[in-house]
């Protein structure tokens, strides 16, 4: 923006900067609190009142308890399977659909497109979907989290729009040289669409990482739980048995709060560390979705 040297402008700038700093503090404080509290001495933390900035005392015992907790490692392992497996299926199906729908000379394309877009406006709802997936025998299998969400319609449309931006002449000349649709998609469209593929990978990946509702509804055995479901037991339902292995009452009561905080850190920090590196792709994705959607 252009500099403004009037008095009113300077006062405004001053207030604006103050406001921004306040907003940053409000945004970051809960995270700072959780990190500091997770490393504090439990007794000192319990007696502490008011704003907490630095750890009160220092112990990593809670982290030790979290890392010993088999639920956390099971959850991490399963989430990894759902994120990698689910995202691969998502990408396969989305690029396939987007490619076909981006073709301009197909007779039934508009009909197919209508069929797909309509599902964004109206759907069967939670219960018929639940009954269907149960009927398909997917309950308590990993498939329940991988297949029923194989395509996000919004993502499909974004990908299609991006594919349509590739000059048609490239595809035509390849077709004349005898390339089939498979070849065109693999050799021409995909190499030219890496940015949108990256964005889709992130969107789908984050979706799988955060998902918990389907897992809660469809998973019976704890061996299949994603991390988020264990987090729910620990953070929301306050289930001490799921916080610590070999639950010892005295230590358990003492460290309960700390274990929650350190669980949050263990479950969140990896994502927060990766995110600044990927931020620009996310931003790009949001903009593609907003401008072309």
């Amino acid at each position, binding site marked *: 923006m*252009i500099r403004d040297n009037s008095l009113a402008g300077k006062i405004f700038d001053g207030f604006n900067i103050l406001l921004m700093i306040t907003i940053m503090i409000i945004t970051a404080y809960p995270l700072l609190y959780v990190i500091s509290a997770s490393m504090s001495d439990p007794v000192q933390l319990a007696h502490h009142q008011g704003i907490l900035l630095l750890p009160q005392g220092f112990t990593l015992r809670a982290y030790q308890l979290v890392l010993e907790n088999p639920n956390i490692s099971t959850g991490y392992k399963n989430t990894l399977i759902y994120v990698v497996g689910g995202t691969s299926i998502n990408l396969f199906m989305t690029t396939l659909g987007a490619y076909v729908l981006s073709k301009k*000379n197909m007779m039934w394309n508009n009909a197919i497109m209508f069929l797909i877009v309509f599902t964004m406006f109206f759907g*069967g709802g939670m219960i018929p*979907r639940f009954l*269907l997936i149960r009927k398909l025998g997917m309950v308590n299998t990993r498939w329940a989290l991988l297949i029923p969400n194989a395509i996000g319609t919004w993502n499909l449309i974004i990908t299609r729009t991006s594919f349509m931006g590739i000059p048609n002449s490239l595809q035509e000349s390849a077709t004349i040289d005898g390339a089939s649709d498979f070849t065109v998609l693999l050799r021409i469209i995909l190499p030219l669409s890496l940015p949108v593929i990256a964005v889709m990978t992130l969107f789908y990946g984050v979706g799988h990482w*955060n998902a918990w509702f389907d897992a809660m509804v469809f998973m019976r055995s704890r061996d299949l739980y994603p991390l*988020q479901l264990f987090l729910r037991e620990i953070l929301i339902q306050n289930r001490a048995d799921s916080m610590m292995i070999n639950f010892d009452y005295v230590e358990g009561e003492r460290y309960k709060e700390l274990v929650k905080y350190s669980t949050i850190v263990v479950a969140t920090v990896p994502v927060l560390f990766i995110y600044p590196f990927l931020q620009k792709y996310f931003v790009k994705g949001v903009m593609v979705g*907003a401008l072309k959607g």
Partner: protein
Amino acid sequence: MAKAEINVTYKINKSTGYRERIVKDFRINKYAYFMAMPVLLYYIIFHYAPMYGIMIAFKDFRPALGIWRSSWIGFQYFKDFLGSYYFWRLIKNTLMINVYQLIFGFPAPIIFALLLNELNNKVFKRTVQTVTYLPYFISVIVICGIIADFTDRNGVINDIIAIFGGERSTMLMRSELFRTIFVSSDIWTNLGWGTIVYLAALSNIDPKLYEAITIDGGGRWEKAIHITLPGIVPTIIILLILRIGNSMSLGWEKIILLYNPLTYETADVISSFVYRKGILEADYGYSAAVGLFNSIINFILLIMANKISRKVNETSLW
């Protein structure tokens, strides 16, 4: 083989009968149609089959008999729902949470984006952005965990209230606080992230417009009101339509995580009610009927929002 195909294509080009066109289209695009199969199957199985399943809203559904052989009961479930004690409570709560979101949650990123836009220092601006984007990457469950901890009787927020002489309470047990907690935590999560779209729209504004208004003697305030704001109005409207279209399913996963029987009075919305009745209490027909009611309102809202915006602003989703 290739030669034969070209011959066929040539022959069919001359006649334009409907059947020939289908055959020709299929011949040329058979691989593409083959590729479309899994996608079509996915939509038919996971989107259209549940639409068929809506039928259970009009049937006395017995899983053992299946959807088709269960007997019809007509609009019984709808009558039950409309006459039940829950009906108005659910409507009121769904409406109120949306109104709160529209009044407080929706404008927050717009104002924030405009203020960010006024920052002169690039590095500072980027720092503010990076920090405020962070909460968006925390999962709903962890956010609800943090909310539960902070609003607890011994949590930070109560500590602060106590310092100012207020009374401590477990805030998630108080129904009158639910909407405030829900909406303000949502603002916390989305404030920074929500600005991205607006900042993108701002960067598309032609700099010549700013130059022109400077020449005309316009100051910073005039620029903001006459150029910057109008520049993002189309974006605002599109996001408003999307928000209104989502209003029937707004944040229900978070509601399920945060509410409890003590706060159903203000927290329970149609979607969370469907979940409780259908999946927890296995009352399938009734909950599917309530869900259908929800989908229909949702559909109407989307169509209406789009119509209105097309009239007012010539900006519409389709």
